[in-house]
């Protein structure tokens, strides 16, 4: 069904435009020019953030930080294998995906840890990336409470997925 989605949207838009006598191709070109602009203004923000995260990861500091927090999880009876994922998910999407893949490969997709990793990956998003990209592209410099709200929402999503997976599969 999902393979119909994008062609379907294109079809609906173009047919409606033709009925409403909108010069579709000209409008398309006009609108897409904005895309180039946005992409170029995005690069500095994305590059800066990605390099910083890469330094933190490649140095081994991230693993060290994870090791420090380990004792905390045993306190709440949460499988400690899930911790790296919970911590990386808001920071780096690609890193989170590789951790999820690794967990599913090691423990099996139908194991408790595998199910938990799957749900956690699907029900949260990379806050730092979204904030960098969305605010960077339109030049918002003062972010207000956005980061706090985003990170707390991640925490809520992580706790929700742990509780739900324990109830449904535990």
């Amino acid at each position, binding site marked *: 069904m999902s393979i119909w989605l994008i062609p379907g949207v*294109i079809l609906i838009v173009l047919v409606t435009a033709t009925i409403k006598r909108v010069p579709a191709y000209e409008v398309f070109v006009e609108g897409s020019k904005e895309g180039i602009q946005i992409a170029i203004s995005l690069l500095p923000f994305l590059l800066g953030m990605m390099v910083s995260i890469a330094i933190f*990861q490649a*140095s081994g500091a991230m693993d060290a930080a994870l090791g420090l927090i380990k004792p905390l999880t045993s306190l709440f009876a949460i499988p400690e294998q899930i911790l790296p994922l919970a911590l990386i998910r808001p920071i780096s999407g690609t890193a989170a995906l590789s951790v999820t893949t690794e967990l599913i490969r090691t423990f099996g997709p139908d194991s408790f840890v*595998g199910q938990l990793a799957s749900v*956690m990956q699907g029900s949260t*998003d990379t806050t730092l990336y979204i904030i960098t*990209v969305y605010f960077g592209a339109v*030049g*918002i410099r003062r972010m207000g409470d956005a980061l706090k*709200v985003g990170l707390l929402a991640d925490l809520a999503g992580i706790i929700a997925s742990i509780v739900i997976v324990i109830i449904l599969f535990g």
Partner: protein
Amino acid sequence: MVNLIWVFLAVSGIAYAAFAGTMDRVNEAIFATIDESVMITLSLAGVLVFWLGLMKIAEEAGLLTGLAKLFKPIVKRLFPDIPENDPALGYILSNMTANMFGLGNAATPMGLKAMKEMKRLSGSERASRSMITFLAINTSSLTLIPTTVIAIRMKYGSVDPTSIIGATILATMISTLAALIIDRYFYYRRRKTGQTL
């Protein structure tokens, strides 16, 4: 705060590498990531050019205002400071719909365009109330069908790759609801302390 996180990640990483002897890996990572970020921007540029072009047609054909009208009752409550029938609402809804169906590639351009429209409304370099709400909804994820995860589960031989859909939808609903509550809490706190936005 993003400033602090950014500096902290780089500085603590370099300091750690100095003690752990991993400076060679840090060097390698810096240059690999510079390349990678240009590649990501380029591939994003393609998607952006295509979807923003298509969405411009949708806007001119009145589809975005139609979409906004359809979901007006919900969206009016979520974004009370955006005027009715403003194109910003149409872009916000296109972004949310694309996210729900796991079309991340189509969702980002619409999200960026929504942000641009919201900036036009606020006319400031400061994040507006509706921008923060919009980000809260986005970061809590709206995925109904986590296609990437299902693909990974298939690859590693799950007996039932889609078994996690129900749990994911439930977790997503709870996290989005929590995000909205947290967002509202911070908004009322800002208002109480006399900040204008």
